[in-house]
């Protein structure tokens, strides 16, 4: 089969809408366009039924009940609502929040804002494999701790945190547990009961649904979680999130969850094989390549590799018919590479050489082979151009050199 270029392999950033999802959504733009809050005519009832159906599809995927699903504009809003809403609601109980350093900015920057308002936040470090230490978590808990917010799986390195263990600790101590489930839900089994999750952010566009729709799981029993709203208005979503519901988006998110539920087992197996094929085909042909993050506790469709002595952005430029991401940030004003890789203890030199591959539902083995071959060929070409590779081959330990202009940067 001929390969169609460019190839998209950046499925942690976003995913295409599955055609089945699009098909489910279409009628709700035109003939079924009602406002789900319209109680006195058919148009409203039809829309409401569709929303409730979607609530059920989402709840089922994570073993929740439909009433525990609150619709939002995306996971960024869900996370803001979970953290700010709980912080405000339980201010009397305490002002301490625990999170960790490799969280998405939606979590980190929300916590930073709360610090300005007098909350205290502990940012747990991660170990070399990208996971937090449960001992450190236990030690960080104080009588003032009201919330623990830890992501299920990381968006750069795909590392899966020990969620069920964290959930157990949270429950023991009577602390609410919020999980950024964006990268994990629909990809690996997530069960809010078994995992002891009280709040969880979900995003449509990471699971082959549309952009601009997300959900927050809010536990109603054992314990019941209450949130202060951050968007006030007509009192939709049990007062937690006002605003006319995005019915088309909600239908799409529901359908996306249903497909994930039905196909997850087979799909994750397929993606794991493709990931292994990609990794093997790259790493067996290049020296000085390193995988970032745990292989044991990892999403099946993620691999993040550092190609020593080749700067990530120049590598992306060489494989410009392939869409992947780099941990290098040559374009940012600070020249800071990925904070996630730095948190793992990956040296800044190697962080600049990292590439994230996110294999998705629509990638094929032929595409994987093409990507691997292009990466290998480009790395080889750029290493011919790299003074660092040359020095390393001459036996110079590049990491121990002092660099002339390093101090100025």
């Amino acid at each position, binding site marked *: 089969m001929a390969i169609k270029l460019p190839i998209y392999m950046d499925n942690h950033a976003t995913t295409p809408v599955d055609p089945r999802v699009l098909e489910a959504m279409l009628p709700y733009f035109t003939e079924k366009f009602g406002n789900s809050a319209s109680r006195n005519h058919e148009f409203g009832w039809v829309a409401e039924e569709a929303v409730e159906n979607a609530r059920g599809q989402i709840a089922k995927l994570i073993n929740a009940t439909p009433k525990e699903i609150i619709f939002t504009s995306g996971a960024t809003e869900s996370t803001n609502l979970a953290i700010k809403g709980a912080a405000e609601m339980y201010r009397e109980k305490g002002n301490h929040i625990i999170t960790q350093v490799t969280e998405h900015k939606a979590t980190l920057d929300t916590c930073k804002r709360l610090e300005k308002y007098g909350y205290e936040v502990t940012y747990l470090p991660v170990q070399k494999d990208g996971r937090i230490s449960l001992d450190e978590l236990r030690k960080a808990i104080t009588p003032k701790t009201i919330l623990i917010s830890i992501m299920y799986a990381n968006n750069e390195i795909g590392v899966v945190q020990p969620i069920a263990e964290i959930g157990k600790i949270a429950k023991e101590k009577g602390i609410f547990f919020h999980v950024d489930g964006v990268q994990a839900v629909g990809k690996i089994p997530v069960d809010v009961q078994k995992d002891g999750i009280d709040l969880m952010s979900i995003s449509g566009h990471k699971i082959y649904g549309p952009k601009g729709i997300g959900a927050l799981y809010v536990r109603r029993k054992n314990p019941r979680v209450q949130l202060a709203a951050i968007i006030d208005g007509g009192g939709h979503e049990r007062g937690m999130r006002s605003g006319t519901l995005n019915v088309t988006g909600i239908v799409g998110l529901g359908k996306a969850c249903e497909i994930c539920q039905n196909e997850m087992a087979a799909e994750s197996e397929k993606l794991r094989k493709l990931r292994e094929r990609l990794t093997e085909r790259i790493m067996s042909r290049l020296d000085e390549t390193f995988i970032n993050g745990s292989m044991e506790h990892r999403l099946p469709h993620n691999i993040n590799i550092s190609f020593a*002595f*080749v*700067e990530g*952005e*120049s590598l992306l*430029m*060489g494989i410009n018919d392939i869409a992947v991401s780099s941990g*290098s*940030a*040559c*374009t*940012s*004003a600070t*020249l800071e*590479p990925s904070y996630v890789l730095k948190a793992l203890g990956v*040296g*800044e*030199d190697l962080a*600049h050489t990292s590439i994230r591959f996110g294999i998705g539902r629509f990638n094929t083995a032929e595409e994987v082979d093409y990507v691997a071959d292009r990466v290998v060929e480009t790395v080889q070409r750029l290493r*011919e*151009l*790299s*003074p*660092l*590779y*040359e020095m390393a081959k001459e036996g110079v330990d*590049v*990491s121990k050199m002092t*660099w*002339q*202009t*390093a101090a*100025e*940067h």
Partner: protein
Amino acid sequence: MAYSDKVIEHYNNPRNVGSLDKKDPNVGTGLVGAPECGDVMKLQMKVNPDTRIIEEAKFKTFGCGSAIASSSLATEWVKGKTVEEALAIKNTDIVRELSLPPVKIHCSVLAEDAIKAALSDWKKKQGDAEAKPAEPATAASH
């Protein structure tokens, strides 16, 4: 971010890639940047001690496409110039030629630093009285 056609052209067909013999008294070597900052440039020039004309220039660069293009262009420009003419090349000339956006100006600064560092090394080897350490261009923009 989109690259200019000239950056892409240099990236795809870099000029004067390679290394000269560091020990040759007529070869000056400049190694600037740092791996943790995401760019390292090595620029080497072979200078005729009688005419002070740069007869050969080679580079190797670890860095983004703009860094590769800046150093490739630098080797092209210094070849055939005298030491003094080469030292007059400004990073802003490189910015203009390659249409570098503001976030990539540091790449051109590094290329200017590399030219200066290589020629200062050459002067040192020549026992040139004027030899002084490379003066980085506008370091603040790094």
